[in-house]
């Protein structure tokens, strides 16, 4: 990353090289003034081209974090004229009972199960796609499609699948002589329903990213292993999986960050219920602010999410740096 920024200036200096050779010849005061004018024109143009975007980033990406820190120390309901200072009250109230720690625990279960299962199945699928069987391309496209389709739409489709009376779920459970659970209406099944949908939606994407990684492995490396008598499983365990570790690490980080923020599937299928059994941190943040008007509590919970995700991101940076230096 830093290498991308470091030779920026060198490059733009180069971009002006045509002018600079001309400037070098002009040693008169007039020439210097003209050169300064041109430089200022460059600055102005940069401002015109880049500042609108940078200003939007400042207002809608950075300011929210700063303001959110302040709001987390206040109580407010959107309606009263101003937020009132409350010190650590919001944080204290989050941890005064079991309800919020339960939300955090549920979020942890959600993230770990979704990420681990998606990665394991995704890698298996990638190994399958790498065999180049006939029709594999069509299946890849099919598996990738849910990743680009609206989460709300995918959730609606699965609501129908999970319907215990007319959905596919009834067919599957009856095949085993059981009756279908009520899934999204049953607090011991609802979270698992959402986890299944989330995995289904993300699987194809993970598989394709892994496939790209597998295709980067030089064929000679695997060929050499094969000649040395390594079986397929040994090849996978000793060569392919270790060589894919940068991909795995990258996927763990990005999938974790996005699993933490999953929202549309929850909003569409359960709205955090029944009995808060699907209230993850991201739903909690929304629900406290926009359904209950507890701005302070919501922003305190936001700060917790922010700190956790920043910690994960920093971990990623440190890992990447270490790899680069090797």
């Amino acid at each position, binding site marked *: 990353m830093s290498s991308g920024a*470091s030779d920026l*200036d060198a*490059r*733009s200096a180069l*971009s002006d090289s045509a002018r600079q050779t001309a400037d070098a010849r002009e040693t008169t005061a007039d020439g210097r003034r003209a050169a300064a004018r041109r430089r200022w024109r*460059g*600055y102005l*143009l*940069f*401002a015109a*081209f*880049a500042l609108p*975007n*940078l200003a*939007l*980033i400042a207002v*809608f*990406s*950075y*300011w*929210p*974090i700063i*303001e*959110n820190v302040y709001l987390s120390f206040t109580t407010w309901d959107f309606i009263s004229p101003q937020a009132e200072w409350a010190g650590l009250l919001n944080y204290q109230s989050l941890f005064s009972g079991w309800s919020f720690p339960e939300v955090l625990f549920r979020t942890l279960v959600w993230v770990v199960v979704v990420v681990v299962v998606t990665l394991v199945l995704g890698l298996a*699928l990638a190994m*399958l796609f790498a*065999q*180049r*069987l006939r029709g594999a*391309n069509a*299946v890849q496209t099919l598996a990738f*499609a849910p*990743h*680009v389709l*609206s*989460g709300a*739409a995918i959730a609606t*489709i699965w609501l*129908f*699948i999970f319907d215990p009376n007319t959905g596919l779920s*009834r067919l599957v459970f009856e095949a085993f002589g059981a009756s279908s659970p009520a899934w999204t209406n049953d607090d011991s099944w609802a979270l698992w329903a959402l986890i299944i949908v989330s995995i*289904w939606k993300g699987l194809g*994407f993970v598989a*394709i990213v892994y496939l790209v990684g597998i295709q980067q492995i030089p064929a000679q490396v695997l060929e050499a292993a094969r000649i040395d008598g390594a079986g397929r499983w040994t090849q996978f365990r000793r060569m392919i999986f270790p060589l894919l570790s940068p991909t795995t*690490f990258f996927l763990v980080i990005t999938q974790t*960050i996005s699993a933490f*923020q999953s929202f*549309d599937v929850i*909003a*569409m299928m359960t709205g955090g219920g029944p009995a808060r059994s699907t209230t993850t941190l991201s739903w909690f*943040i*929304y629900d406290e*602010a*926009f359904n209950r008007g507890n*701005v302070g509590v919501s*922003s305190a919970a*936001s*700060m917790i999410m922010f700190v956790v*995700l920043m910690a994960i991101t920093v971990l990623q940076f440190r890992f*990447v740096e270490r790899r680069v230096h090797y």
Partner: protein
Amino acid sequence: MTVMPTAAATEPAPREPGSRRTRWWGVLALVITALVFLIPLYLFVSTAFKTNADINSWPMRLIPRSLTLENFVNAWTLAPFDQFLINSVVVAAIGTVLKVVLAISTAYAFAFLPFPGKRYLFIFMLGALMVPGHVTLLVNYITVGQMNLLNTYAGLILPGVASAFGTFLLHQFFRSLPYEVLEAAQLDGAGHLRRIFSVIMPMARPAIITVGLIALIDEWNGFVWPLIVTNSVNMRTLPIGLLYLKENDGINDWGALMAGTLFVVLPVAIVFLLAQRYIVAGLAGSAVRR
């Protein structure tokens, strides 16, 4: 932020002759995978065209006895889908165009224009990629409220058009362009806009298309921001319209709900099938944090 090497995952490499036998378990696994994704999609699309009698009959009717458009009519009467469609098109079209324009101009500025402390501004821009979107919702809602833009197209669009990822991607691409061509254009007296439109944009076409398509898909599928920033039914976009339809009718009318879902999904599905190459390479090749 790792940037994965871009490769067209969908392009098959030539099969080495005779090096691999087709294994029956591979074929079986492929068929099962296909079914895992096909069955839910088939049930969804077929239900949108089934009669209520067929939908509610048990054992399940996999093949409908007759097809009907009644579900679409029902969805349309239960919720103003024409208005949702207009809103979605306006938001996605304007949002995408603005985002791409901002990404191109910012990337150009960072690649070719001078500015004191430019590299720090670049890092400032990249830093935005680390900010989790969900954490910004509440304050952005308050900010947009103070701008008096709640429940307007401007409010729907504005926070989403800032482009850090797209700018980064295009910046990398612009810097890889042959420098001689740009210098030649400069010496021919082409101004910055001329250089962007007639030199840079044609050369960077694949990258710009990728950035545009990803922006379009994001805008179209956007859920939590439109949910928060709009409060009247007539300003809702399609995904929120779907939530409205579900809550309005409960889940009693699967036909109408699946028909409504088809409205939401179809445009992106078509774009995806037509431009798969760009989308898969763009998303998987540089797996995006959005």
